[in-house]
């Protein structure tokens, strides 16, 4: 359990940094582990997806750039699921320090974020192909 918790913590730290470019707050890390303890048995993770997630974390690849190319309708890819989990935890558990609810952008900043996102998509496509991620 402790090894698993450590792995989950490392995983959450990397994915959170990909999402929000900052350190994962301790409380959110605890929540991340708590969700896995309660719900992860219900998640049907295919071995190929688990491998993809492992590679992303181990090689510190940009998860958010890769994820759109793994995204699908219906059941989420495990990478989408875990990123989305962190988005929920940030929105619901961070109060005034959260990113989702408290980011205010002017139009220039908004455009900049969108353009960086589009560039990120291209980078993610390259990473997916380069590392054979599925």
């Amino acid at each position, binding site marked *: 359990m402790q090894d698993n918790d450590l792995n989950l913590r490392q995983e959450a730290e990397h994915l959170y940094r990909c999402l*929000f470019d900052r350190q994962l707050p301790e409380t959110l890390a605890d929540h991340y582990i708590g969700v896995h303890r*309660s719900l992860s048995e219900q998640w049907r993770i295919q071995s190929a997806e688990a491998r993809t997630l492992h590679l992303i974390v181990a090689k510190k690849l940009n998860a958010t750039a890769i994820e759109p190319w793994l995204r699908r309708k219906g059941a989420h890819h495990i990478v989408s699921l875990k990123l989305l989990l962190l988005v929920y935890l940030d*929105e619901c558990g961070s109060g005034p320090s959260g990113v989702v609810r408290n980011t205010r952008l002017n139009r220039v900043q908004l455009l900049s974020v969108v353009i960086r996102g589009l560039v990120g998509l291209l980078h993610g496509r390259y990473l997916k192909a380069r590392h054979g991620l599925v």
Partner: protein
Amino acid sequence: MDWFERVIVGSGPSGVGAALRMVETGTCIVDAGESTDYKFPFPTLQEAIAEGAIADLLGPDWHLLSHLADPSRAHIKLRAAGLSFVMGGDSFRVEDLKGDLLNRGAGSLAAGGMSNVWGGQLLRYTDADLGEAGGWPFSAAELERYYADLEHHIGISGQIDDMQEFLGGGVPLLPPPPMVPAARHLYQRYLLRKSNGRSPLLLGRPRLAVATEPYNGRPAYNFGETEFFTTRQPGFYTARQSLDELRSGGKIGYLPGFRLMEWKETPEHVELRLRELKTGTTRIVRTRHLLIGCGTTQTAQLVLEHYRAHNRMLPFMDHPPALLPLFLPLKIGSTLPKKSFPIQLIGTLPGSGRRDMISFYYPGGMLWSNIVADVPLPMSSAARIMRSLLGGMLVAQIWQTSRPSPGNRLGIRESGEMVISYPERAPCTVVPPLLEAMFRLGVFSLSRLASHSPPGWGFHYAGCLPMKQSPGEYETHIDGRLWDSRRVRLIDGSVLPSLPAKNHALTLMANAARIADEVKRCGY
């Protein structure tokens, strides 16, 4: 053995619609009556978010996240801990022609039924609606006074505007709720364009069961954006409210915690076999008239079980809406309101020759994480732009008329499992003309961003035992009686012969009220 002059089974919109006409001695509602003690402890969503109240927002044992792996398994309205009890009734499978599973659904055993999670729009059907949908054995005039009585009882907010004819002519009693900036902008652009005679769209404010002022002893609604977390908010009408009022006023009997398992009809009465949910014990009740309003799927199942008609397939209709995100560039970055209501505007495209309905929703009054994965950008970008994006965003929920199709059928297997065979999905043809109409108003989207709800997700189920002038087997008389019965009537969506595009909530109530009056008039 209990005796009641009339028994109504179910306390959803239909059951309550009938009960309101039968407030005299001897009428009893038999109800599974499931409820929840769970209360969302914040008056507004934004206060909960500001507090970082993660346990309240995501629920005990992370309840709201239990569908994270596959969001298509649970409607967004049913994910919160305070609302998942609403669809705890009999489950059904939705299958394609090959028998492969498309989806699962369930009926409701909740006190107040599915109205616990309805969107609050209460709209009249008109003769134009019924004519287009087809198959109705009476005109809208038969429902007029019931619509008026119910609207007066509930208190409808809205305004008289260009949608007046489409909405059936009722006069709202309360002012409409405030609009969010994006909706106000769209409406103003519409009014300007319309004045130049150049709008292919009709647009107006919705008619809502939401009190914008105190009404009939009920408080005004606080618009705290908690609709996705809890029910029974003061000022937001659901059937539960009327049920509670009828009970506390001693106007109706109420037998909670029971389900109808079987009935036996004699020339003098109907004998009901009820099962107490907690103990499993049987209770026998006799009544002069039985009115069944358990919701379309559960009522259909009861009827099929009663006639031992396993593998008999009944017609089935629903209203799976299409969703289209709409972007108003000039309002992106607007300050978001602290309070809001989901449904902002309602529209139709009269030039299409059809009476499709478009509800325009503001998606900001719920958890933004629900829609982050729908933005076609990396989540790191999507999460950051949500606040700005939502200022200039609405979602069009598109409803089309639903008619019986030969292939879509509901039945029960020998095992008792309820199955809906759903090989036919009507294409959504509204998206292209809507995109064009929106473009002319400075609102943008792409057809590829439209999503189509899976079969069985529409909640607006109907048509299994349709009313006819001369009903055949598995059909009902205009007064709700089963084809071969004197004393057993169906009062819910199962009897509606087709579904106009508008949501059918008010018509369920009005038709049930009409059938209740038929019972009072029948003379036996």
